[in-house]
């Protein structure tokens, strides 16, 4: 009794450590063993999700109100894998593992990679935008993007300068929006085009632009990772992929036909 009780406790804490945020950069591959069934299910469901994201991006202007609303609806519907009565831990684990399985499937050609990166980025952008302000900052800090939010007093004192340096900002939005202080070296595109306020080596980035910076980081990391997997692909993964091919051949998707 004691023994199993202790074990439960251990599992609980390692769960918390592994997935301490609902969002991640997928930096570490999963290290556990999973069943073939889980493997199949996870892969297929994530693929469904990415296809949904793709379709929405075609039917609506990306990031418009409609798009965001629709995506929210679809992601919360019971058929979508993200919900479905599982614990937060289960959701995150599934997110983690399914992403990595699809990496294997989509690293092969330039077209596949591009498609995969695009949908993953769109999904990530939505999920990041959906986070609360505190969770956003948490995410940044946990991923070594040590960007602080600008305090309300500082925003007030710099209000005019912030308005004239970024597009689409007014007095109200400056007060309501979060601004992040980012070292200018991490925001070169905005610096180069002078679309951001610079002070003492920091760029004052409004909330909607921080997403761009984070997304750039996301894209770079994913791109690199896919290139690495591609390199090792033929050495290690052929068996796995052959298996996936068979298991997933029932699912009609142009991407999988290429497999």
């Amino acid at each position, binding site marked *: 009794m004691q023994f199993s009780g202790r074990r439960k406790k251990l599992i609980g804490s390692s769960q918390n450590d592994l997935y301490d945020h609902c969002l991640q950069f997928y930096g570490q591959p999963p290290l556990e063993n999973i069943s073939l069934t889980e493997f199949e299910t996870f892969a297929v469901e994530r693929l469904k999700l990415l296809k949904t994201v793709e379709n929405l991006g075609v039917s609506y202007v990306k990031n418009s109100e409609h798009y965001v609303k629709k995506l929210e609806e679809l992601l919360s519907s019971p058929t979508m894998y993200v919900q479905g009565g599982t614990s937060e831990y289960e959701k995150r684990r599934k997110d983690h593992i399914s992403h990595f399985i699809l990496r294997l499937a989509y690293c092969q050609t330039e077209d596949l990679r591009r498609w995969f990166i695009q949908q993953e980025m769109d999904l990530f952008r939505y999920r990041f935008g959906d986070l609360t302000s505190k969770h956003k900052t948490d995410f940044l800090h946990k991923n070594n993007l040590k960007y602080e939010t600008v305090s309300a007093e500082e925003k007030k004192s710099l209000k005019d300068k912030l308005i*004239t*340096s970024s597009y689409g900002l007014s007095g109200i939005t400056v007060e309501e929006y979060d601004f992040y202080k980012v070292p200018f070296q991490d925001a*070169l595109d905005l*610096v180069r085009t002078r679309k951001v306020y610079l002070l003492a080596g920091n760029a004052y980035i409004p909330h909607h632009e921080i997403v761009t910076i984070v997304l750039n980081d996301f894209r770079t990391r994913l791109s690199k990772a896919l290139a690495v997997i591609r390199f090792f692909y033929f050495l290690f993964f052929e068996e796995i992929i052959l298996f996936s091919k068979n298991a997933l051949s029932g699912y009609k998707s142009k991407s999988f036909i290429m497999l």
Partner: protein
Amino acid sequence: ILRYIENQYFFNILPLAVSKNYFQNREFSFTLKDGIYVRYQSFATQNELEKEMQKMVPYKIDIGAVYSHRPSQHNTVKSGTFQALEKELVFDIDMTDYDDVRRCCSYTDCWKCWTLMTIAIRILDRALLKDFGFHHLLWVYSGRRGLHCWVCDDAARKLSVVARSAVAEYLSLVKGGEETVRKVVLSDPIHPFINHSLSVVEHYFQQYAIVDQDILGSKESVDKVLALLPEDILSFPDEKDPMKQWDQLCDLVERKKVKYFDKEIMLQYCYPRLDINVRKGVNHLLKSPFSVHPKTGRISVPIDLKELNMFDPFEVPTISLICEELERPRADEAEEDDMKDQENEQEAGERRRIRDYKRTSLAKYAKVFDPFLEAMARSRKGEMLKKSDLQKDF
């Protein structure tokens, strides 16, 4: 004579090179007599550099980047691994880049256009310090008709090529080559940096452009200005006094609500034009401060920003002046003999060198240079203390 110069130079400039870390991996280039250019020079110690200078007597010394290996051995290193690691961020501003908006002189020097350099320093210095947060800036007169700016912060030295280019873009407002007529285009919203720059330009514009450059003084030059205005403004208001003409033009622009044309004109005539070299990245070498300009003989001295308005390029000492000053008999020879007994030969030699350059007109420029070096040394000490503190934490 040149030997004296080497010594003065060596003593002044070396601290700068040394305080720019990793002296052994720093690239120098020498321009020798007859224009022979030698790259990839590197030295293990200051003494080595001095000896080489005395041996080869370079006419010009350029400073390059700090590399991954000793530049003098770059041919022995596996290709691809020899790389530039750090390089100061430098800006090169030359009067010839303003030729399309100046009428005062072409290849000769004149005092009328130096204001452009003053404007450049005021705008860029503020931006580099306040916007980008750099601390260690050295502005150096190029010897003839231009300026160099050395940004020596750690952060600046480590900037990637992409980052350097982004900094240069942020600071650029005048774009386009010979084919482009209207080189400055402003649109809403006006970024705070542009506003700061405009206030500097506006301060100098009337005296510099209307009076000194007389841009409304001849039909030809008036046409050039008109070319920058919208098509429905065909001529300048009728007025004898060019100042009033300009004022009336500004009113006209405001009335017609053609936005920022008057500001664009001011910027096109006055805003700093950065040399494209800064985009060449980390392999590029720039002339060392305190070197001699081959055509004018003037020394590339640091500029004192506190006395910027009084800086006169024609008063910068030439090499011949310095030599003359050095030839003059020393006033304190007795003192020197006393000291000789107490120190060894090398130290005495160094002290002599210190006293030597202080006797010349270079002394006042050394007074600008020294605080700059001290500030860098202090900040380096601070960094090292921080690092060692961090290491002590377990």
